[in-house]
């Protein structure tokens, strides 16, 4: 556990966000966000609901549009150019709170769809890759079932495998365990921990503070659309600087 947290992170920049602002109508939802993520970093973003943490990571793969500032992912600047957006999306995997698996396709088809159509991988090769990642998330035996036949935890692991099949350089997690029963949270977190140990660059919005302590190299606390505090997990949890963070941590860890 200690080793993972202190694992050497490369100097290669994965994501740069500069002076980014976003509004929903007149509501200023993200305010002057500046963030640099290095290759191999594992960042946990936490904060009260409505603080803009989901919106922030959804801006990174352009599921949400930002109005001001610059986002650069893996050397590609996010602009209105659809080609750039599709390029970034194919490099950045994303897992959603509600999995968003495609219910009309089998688990295997869910996993091979994007490699075949976006990466133009031959079908057989795509299926081998998919089975490899399904084994990794420990559900190869479900490959021919439909998402509706799986439990929530299994579905989320399929969603992770589906993203991994695109061989992404960065993974975004948008509250991946919030819609799950307590018993299933662990199986998803275990998968994510395994992924982190392999050196995947991860940005994770979550309320799982145990997970943050164990795998994150950096914890970011957001409130009212701003980054209020960021630090290494030990410091962040044991010695929060801002009053708002202290209040949040006392509420979330208090019971």
């Amino acid at each position: 556990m200690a080793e993972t947290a202190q694992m050497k992170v490369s100097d290669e920049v994965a994501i740069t966000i500069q002076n980014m602002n976003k509004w929903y109508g007149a509501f200023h939802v993200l305010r002057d966000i500046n963030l640099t993520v290095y290759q191999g970093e594992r960042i946990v973003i936490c904060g009260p609901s409505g603080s803009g943490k989901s919106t922030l990571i959804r801006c990174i793969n352009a599921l949400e549009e930002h109005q001001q500032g610059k986002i650069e992912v893996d050397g590609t600047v996010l602009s209105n150019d659809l080609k750039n957006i599709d390029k970034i999306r194919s490099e950045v995997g994303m897992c959603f709170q509600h999995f968003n698996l495609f219910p009309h396709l089998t688990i295997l088809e869910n996993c091979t769809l994007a490699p075949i159509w976006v990466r133009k991988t031959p079908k057989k090769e795509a299926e081998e890759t998919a089975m490899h990642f399904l084994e990794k998330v420990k559900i190869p035996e479900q490959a021919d079932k439909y998402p509706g036949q799986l439990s929530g935890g299994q579905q989320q692991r399929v969603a992770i495998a589906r993203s991994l099949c695109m061989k992404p350089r960065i993974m975004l997690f948008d509250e991946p365990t919030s819609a799950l029963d307590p018993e299933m949270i662990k199986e998803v977190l275990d998968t994510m921990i395994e992924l982190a140990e392999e050196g995947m660059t991860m940005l994770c919005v979550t309320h799982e503070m145990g997970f943050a302590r164990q795998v994150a190299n950096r914890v970011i606390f957001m409130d009212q659309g701003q980054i209020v505090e960021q630090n290494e997990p030990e410091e962040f949890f044991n010695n929060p600087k801002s009053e708002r963070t202290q209040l949040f941590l006392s509420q979330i860890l208090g019971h």
Partner: protein
Amino acid sequence: MSDTHAQTVAFVRETTIPESPPPAAETGAIKWLRQNLFATPANSLLTVAALYVIWVVLSGSLPWIFGGLWTTTSLAECREILQGRTGACFSVLSERWNQLLYGFKYPADQYWRPNLAFLLLFFAAAPVLFFDLPRKMLIFTGLYPFLAYWLIWGGSLLVPIVALLGFLGGALVYQRFIKTSFAAGFFGGIAAAFVIWTVAGAIIPENASDNAMLSSVPSRDLGGFMLNMMLGVTCVSLSLPIGIALALGRQSDMPLIKWVCVVFIEFIRGVPLITLLFVASVMLSYFFPPESTVDLFLRVVIMITMFSSAYIAEVIRGGLAALPKGQYEGADSLGLDYPQAMQLIILPQALKISIPGIVNVAVGLFKDTTLVSVISMFDLVGMIRGPILASTEWNGVYWELLGFAALLFFVVCYGISQYSQWLERRLATDHR
């Protein structure tokens, strides 16, 4: 509960209660009768009343049907033989059978042509309707419209070949330019098709149809149930893709496309089909160049297709709206572009949701093809109301003729409905 277990609050179950069969009185035919037909006095009364109604209907209609005559040559002869006894005069069906099916002008020695086209329709439709069949059969489906056109209308084989070449040329240009930009591919393809049609159309000699393998049959000679089938099949298969395009266009982010689709849909839905058909028969020729004589059949197809595609578009829009936003985001997050996301993720699910609505429109459209009888096309209903009932032999044979028409339409519509239910079961993957 706390009262009953007041003394045994700390309760631990150590054995599982074994499963046991239901009480014997819960099974059997008498049990079923009592439960479903004679459960309460009011229920029993309704059962008896329903049985009485069924008896009245059957006792009236069965002798009429089974006492029917099939071989007379006129209604008067029927009456003579029946001598006041109940019995239908089905002879009108057997005597006018060909007129009912093919209209009264289609050359009788050429009936095999529409028959063959009808038979081949099953082979053409099979791979579209049943997607477990080999995909190679779709090649025949693609060729079928041209083949069927040639079979039914006859004339020079060059006409359908040029039409086919135009589509192929357009598709080639589309494929070639779609990589650079969608607009270039789309409009380039359409332009290429028109160029081929104009150039090749000018080359076809005027008298090409004179000594053709199949003698030429003009559109006004088509009629009977054949005409209903032709209009129904053509318009349904054209209006589904157009409806999908309109539904997607209405959801488009591009204001121009969006408003064109909205105006089209709202305008067409706001006008009765009968009006559109009158426009087709009388006014549409004003919109074409003066010399061009656009076929009445084609004009009617255009109008019915526009009408039903507007309805289908709205049905599909409902399906699109029913999909959770997460499906769009899931597709986006994997890097699928818009056509891929629509083709692979959104439309398969939206269309599945829309099946009942689409079938509703298709069945309605098929029955609405009888409206062409008011613009003096002799479809099944037009034949019955016109030449057959107006003839001296069969003046007054309403039940038999209209019952026959109802039966034909029912068979087709019930078939469509059964297919759609099978399709819904086949596509069900949600395991609720």
